[in-house]
């Protein structure tokens, strides 16, 4: 299991490394695709960019507010024992993607001929080949790890499934306290562990986030072409950048969520591995040390989780760069571009 978890994390890191080597869609693409100044194409182009800017500004603001609300809920209701804070990445992802998925204002009806190209646009045709597989792979990992953690979880003192149960051993010692005289088999538990108490909200939010993310991609794909065919190159760039931001941001938040869940699981796993496998007559050292397969698993999960959080931070940086490309104000006076509005 430890090997499988490490392998999955290494695959992910390889993927992120490959991503970093890929060129990012640049604002220069956007600026170059804008038509020459002046109505009607210039004004329509600016309106098209402004609509996307508004959306990509509102989405992070709403998501940030949702994240802060989670902190506030945890501070106000401590008996939730960290649940609102644990699910912040998924809450932020769901709200952010849902705002990006909101339908735009319908275009005012205009007279004149309407054109359409016959190229298929869908969530799968936007952006690079990894655009959907990377977040889908991460979402599956989150679901699988949450389900496994839920299945091995046990109740805490108030009955909530947020502890890790394990077979424990106790020792009776001689009067000097140095030699084991009796081995007692027992049951131990350590927490907080991402059991069903945390896992069910995680899975619900995962489904909500997936639906919102797919909705956001579908909106990018299905938004109607501008009436002016001269704006189509600009339209293509806006779609490319939008899809890039959505897929990279989704992968970032899922990666961080997986890392946080892993770190949460690693601590009780290490506690469960703190067992001396002593027999009657053995000397008692007084200090238990992590050992056995659980200790290796705890180490692998902790290491993998740190790497996942780092990968999430890198992906998040890429998504922010993409958003910045969309939000950055355009240089005002470009020399009249020849043929860009044709």
């Amino acid at each position, binding site marked *: 299991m430890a090997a499988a978890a490490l392998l999955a994390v290494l695959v992910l890191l390889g993927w992120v490394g490959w991503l970093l080597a890929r060129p990012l869609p640049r604002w220069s693409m956007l600026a170059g695709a804008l038509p020459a100044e002046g109505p009607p194409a210039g004004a329509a182009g600016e309106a098209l960019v402004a609509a996307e800017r508004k959306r990509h500004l509102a989405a992070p603001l709403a998501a940030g507010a949702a994240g802060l609300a989670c902190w506030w809920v945890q501070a106000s209701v401590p008996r939730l024992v960290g649940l609102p804070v644990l699910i912040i990445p998924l809450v932020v992802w769901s709200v952010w993607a849902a705002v990006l998925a909101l339908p735009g204002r319908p*275009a005012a009806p205009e007279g004149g*001929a*309407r*054109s*359409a190209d*016959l190229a*298929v*646009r869908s969530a799968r045709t936007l952006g690079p080949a990894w655009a959907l597989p990377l977040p889908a792979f991460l979402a599956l990992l989150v679901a699988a790890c949450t389900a496994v953690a839920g299945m091995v979880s046990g109740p805490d003192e108030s009955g909530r499934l947020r502890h890790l149960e394990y077979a424990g051993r106790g020792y009776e010692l001689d009067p000097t306290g140095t030699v084991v005289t009796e081995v007692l088999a027992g049951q131990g538990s350590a927490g907080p562990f991402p059991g069903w108490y945390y896992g069910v909200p995680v899975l619900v939010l995962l489904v909500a986030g997936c639906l919102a993310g797919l909705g956001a991609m579908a909106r990018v*794909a299905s938004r109607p072409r501008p009436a002016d065919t001269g704006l189509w190159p600009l339209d293509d760039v806006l779609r490319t950048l939008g899809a890039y931001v959505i897929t990279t941001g989704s992968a970032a938040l899922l990666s961080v969520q997986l890392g946080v869940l892993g770190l949460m699981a690693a601590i009780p796993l290490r506690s469960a591995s703190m067992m001396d496998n002593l027999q009657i007559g053995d000397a008692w050292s007084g200090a238990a040390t992590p050992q056995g397969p659980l200790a290796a698993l705890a180490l692998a999960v902790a290491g993998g989780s740190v790497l996942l959080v780092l990968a999430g931070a890198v992906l998040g940086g890429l998504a922010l760069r993409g958003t910045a490309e969309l939000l950055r104000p355009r240089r005002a006076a470009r020399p009249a571009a020849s043929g860009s509005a044709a």
Partner: protein
Amino acid sequence: MITVDPGSALPPGEQIRAQIEALVRSGELAADVRLPSVRQLASDLRVAAGTVARAYKDLEQAGLVRTGRAAGTRVNPGQALAAPVLPEADAFVAAARRAGLSLQEAQWTLASRWGE
């Protein structure tokens, strides 16, 4: 690219059907190429989805395209006109454009000679 002109005497669905048929017959839309979804094309052309769906249905009945549940609407193989016709068609289009004819006027011209 296809265009729907609200000022045309032809209804939008017929304009869509005729233009896609022309692209298939000319070979510009190759065999097995997938056409956009009804919703995408309707939204881009600002026409009702039913209008595009009807045009696709007509193309399917004419054997030009096929529609599968998952594969979408795709161009059937063997629908492009034989290559020898295309140069003449290109020449006719060039002459019609030089004369300032619209697509409809060019089509009428062709239709008037068709029966001879």
